[in-house]
């Protein structure tokens, strides 16, 4: 039986993918990409979760045996930063495309037609 957290993550990934496949506005495609990223991050975090344990900050009352896996959280921290970087790059490409073609519709932009 698949957990509800995995289900939510898969749903987010699919919603993002749907936007990438169907939408024609470049900005909406980028929003879809971001939603997909969020889904992947949620999936990683929920794989690392251990029920009944708390965040991996070893303060009062939380020993090494009462904390969840720190590695997926560290990886997601990395993934978020890379996501910000790629989103910024993609947005500046979108700004350039808008300056050149005067539109963000991917079907009206000549070179992207296919």
């Amino acid at each position, binding site marked *: 039986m698949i957990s509800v957290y995995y289900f939510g993550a898969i749903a987010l990934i699919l919603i993002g993918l749907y936007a990438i496949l169907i939408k024609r506005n470049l900005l909406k495609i980028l929003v879809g990409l971001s939603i997909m990223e969020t889904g992947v991050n949620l999936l990683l975090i929920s794989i690392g979760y251990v029920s009944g344990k708390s965040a991996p*900050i070893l303060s009062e009352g939380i020993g090494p045996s009462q904390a969840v896996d720190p590695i997926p959280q560290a990886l997601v921290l990395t993934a*978020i930063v890379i996501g910000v970087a790629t989103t910024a790059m993609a947005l500046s490409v979108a*700004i*350039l495309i808008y300056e050149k073609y005067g539109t963000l519709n991917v079907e009206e932009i000549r070179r992207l037609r296919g």
Partner: protein
Amino acid sequence: MVVKRALAIITLLVIGYWLAVGLSQVPFGEDKMLIGQYYLNNVKDQTGAVNAVTAVVVNYRGFDTLGEVTVLFIASTGVGALLWKRKRKRTAKTEGSIVLTTGTRLLFPFVMLFGAYIFIHGHLTPGGGFPGGATVATAFLLLYLAYTAYEIPHRGFEVTEGLAGMGYVTVGLIGLAIGGYFLFDWIWQTWQFGTDNIGRLLSGGFIPIIYTIIGIKVGTELSGIIDNMVKEEVSE
């Protein structure tokens, strides 16, 4: 259009089924830790940090984080290169309302302070250099929103960014000289600094230092990206 949408939905269903089948083998909430448990058991002795996530990011995988900072730097440079035009100015015409300007004047120092708090306490609380730097950048975004003529001091920001990048490598190279490998935690391993202080501010080896450097670097880089994006080309 209908055909395209139907095909897309079929593709999504196939991918979703495939993901669900794969994940049904992975039990939720069970202890699957292998190396994670090792990190949790040894994090206090080996790094002096309380927050295991930070220790993994900066200490055990410090070289990785250097690459991450590099990726962010390349993205920031790339945005600048893509949007580079000879004449670019801010063309915003409406000044922020009095609520926005007064709020900005009031909140700006506190947002900066909160960002600094997040990256200085990276080894104790959730957070660290990247979220702290992003918070600092939002303070500058607030200034951009409120004042039409505002621009970040470019020269100072570029110098700060370069110095922060070199600072990270320098800390790593000092580790190379003292301990024998790049990004060796010399403050903790060699000097034993803060051993009886774990859980307080002055502990955690070089993690607070590196996270402060990362926070400054991320803050200046994201501010630079914001600056590049709000400017528009003006004809002379």
